[in-house]
């Protein structure tokens, strides 16, 4: 694991965006050679998306030969609902870049056969040659995507019932009306993300600090599903100072001391 600690949210977002940008450029994507990217939603990656859009608008980065696979989507929410993850991705990313719509994959929470939709998604990832870089976030309960505490660490894309905590946290996006909040979602499994060649987890804010501690300083445990990535050959955790508040001073000092810049050829 690499732990990259930046002073604040903006710097962490910028670092992550630069990393993704460089990975794509170094890969030299083209007609027969697409770069596959796994993408998250939520408030944490917003800064990173803004930066990626900036690099695109400056002419530094094209998404013409990039294929994306989003982590999750609510079940039963109309695709054009302002809180759907389709809307999130359109407004915060896709509409500002030059990605081919055929290459932007998001699970369909309104499919007639939800499990078939999940299986088809796994198949699409396989057909695209697997994921080169999967970007994700972490929930306060240590979940990745909607793999809430207790999810199998070898799980695949499937239908999940959301935890009460998640539903309560989401209520603010649905006029505070609990009855309007979706209770189920389709999500990639922990195993699905583990299959990626590289994983980058973005963690910012003090409210995520305990989850980060559990994810990297304690053992691999299905109650904190992000901990599974301790067993992935190539994972980077990108955080701001606040997210490290529950870590040992020793851990923070150790990783801050390491200079990744040269290693990553910036």
């Amino acid at each position: 694991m690499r732990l990259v600690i930046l002073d604040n949210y903006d710097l962490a977002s910028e670092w992550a965006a630069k990393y993704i940008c460089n990975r794509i450029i170094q890969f030299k994507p083209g007609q027969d050679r697409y770069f596959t990217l796994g993408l998250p939603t939520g408030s944490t990656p917003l800064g990173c998306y803004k930066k990626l859009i900036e690099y695109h608008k400056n002419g530094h980065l094209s998404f013409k030969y990039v294929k994306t696979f989003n982590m999750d989507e609510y079940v039963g929410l109309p695709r054009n609902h302002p809180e759907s993850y389709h809307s999130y991705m359109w407004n915060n990313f896709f509409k500002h870049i030059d990605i081919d719509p055929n290459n932007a994959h998001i699970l369909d929470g309104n499919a007639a056969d939800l499990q078939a939709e999940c299986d088809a998604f796994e198949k699409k990832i396989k057909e695209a040659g697997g994921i080169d870089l999967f970007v994700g976030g972490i929930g306060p309960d240590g979940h990745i995507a909607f793999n809430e505490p207790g999810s199998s660490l070898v799980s695949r894309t499937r239908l999940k019932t959301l935890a009460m905590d998640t539903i309560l946290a989401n209520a603010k996006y649905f006029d505070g009306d609990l009855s309007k909040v979706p209770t189920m979602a389709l999500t990639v499994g922990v195993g699905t993300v583990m299959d990626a060649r590289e994983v980058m987890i973005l963690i910012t804010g003090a409210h995520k600090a305990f989850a980060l501690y559990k994810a990297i300083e304690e053992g691999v445990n299905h109650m904190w599903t992000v901990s599974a990535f301790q067993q992935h050959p190539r994972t980077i955790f990108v955080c701001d100072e606040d997210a490290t508040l529950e870590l040992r001073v020793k851990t923070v000092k150790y990783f801050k001391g390491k200079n990744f810049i040269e290693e990553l050829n910036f």
Partner: protein
Amino acid sequence: MRAPSLSVRREDLWVRGGRILDPEKLFFEERRVADERRDCGGRILAPGFIDVQINGGFGVDFSQATEDVGSGVALVARRILSHGVTSFCPTLVTSPPEVYHKVVPQIPVKSGGPHGAGVLGLHLEGPFISREKRGAHPEAHLRSFEANAFQDLLATYGPLDNVRIVTLAPELGHSHEVIRELTTRGICVSLGHSVADLRAAEDAVWSGATFITHLFNAMLPFHHRDPGIVGLLTSDRLPAGRCIFYGMIADGTHTNPAALRIAHRAHPQGLVLVTDAIPALGLGNGRHTLGQQEVEVDGLTAYVAGTKTLSGSIAPMDVCVRHFLQATGCSVESALEAASLHPAQLLGLEKSKGTLDFGADADFVVLDDSLHVQATYISGELVWQAEAARQ
């Protein structure tokens, strides 16, 4: 871009088949991107302006029974594109029946395009109005409703197929059956050139009236014990959920800015900017014809020749929008809505006109930050462009 009364925001506008397109739907369902892009340089894109009261312009008088009424209307329709107007209601002032019979059938409803702004239907202002408040309308041709009320109206105007708005004075006898009959036929009834008190005006609204013609002008002045027609703006005796709309000529002459502000603050949702422009619009100082009378133009003001009676405005719609913005200190959105969304709502067209909602007709204007028109589009096609913007 879904509900009315939105704010100006940084977005792209997508158009296909002459209509505003939902790009998110295009991306996820059809999996397509844009075929063509046009950079508007960060300017404001707003729904095209809609003028529901315009008597002519550029030498053309809609109330004159000329041999070729069609070309007159076409000329005005083309010239007002530069004012940002994409749809309008040609207005006829009080005239003898022969004029209506000759002119009305020659001005059909017509879609706009490179040839000019769209005709939404005619606005017949008079002759069923008050003698006392006739303003510039010729006294000789005023009428009242006889016992046959609606039949009298039909006999005067002829067939109503091309008619969209009728302005009348509700204090005239039998007016209520006329209002009800017109409303049933989908024609908007407007109160104006009237000495009605508030009660009579409210009753007219119950019968179906939805508009007030040039508020403050040609009606009883506001009085604190009987606000008259002006009182409709804050009346609590109107049918539930009904919004009363009112036209205002914001040319800096017809209404004192303080009065404009009073009306706007009392009932901002109902304010509709109209030009009430006369044939002298776009012509310059001198004598010109309006209906059956002569008018004198001096700067931005026009009078009935030889009198001090205002004869209609010559301020273009975009000038009115800018003056309204400056006089009321309202938001840019409010000023733009008064010239687009509100007239569309008045005519029940708000699903297709006066809005940039998905599915609406792509009639819009490109404005700079001080609301000067840089370009006009109808059905997604560029139909006018300012000199500076042309390459």
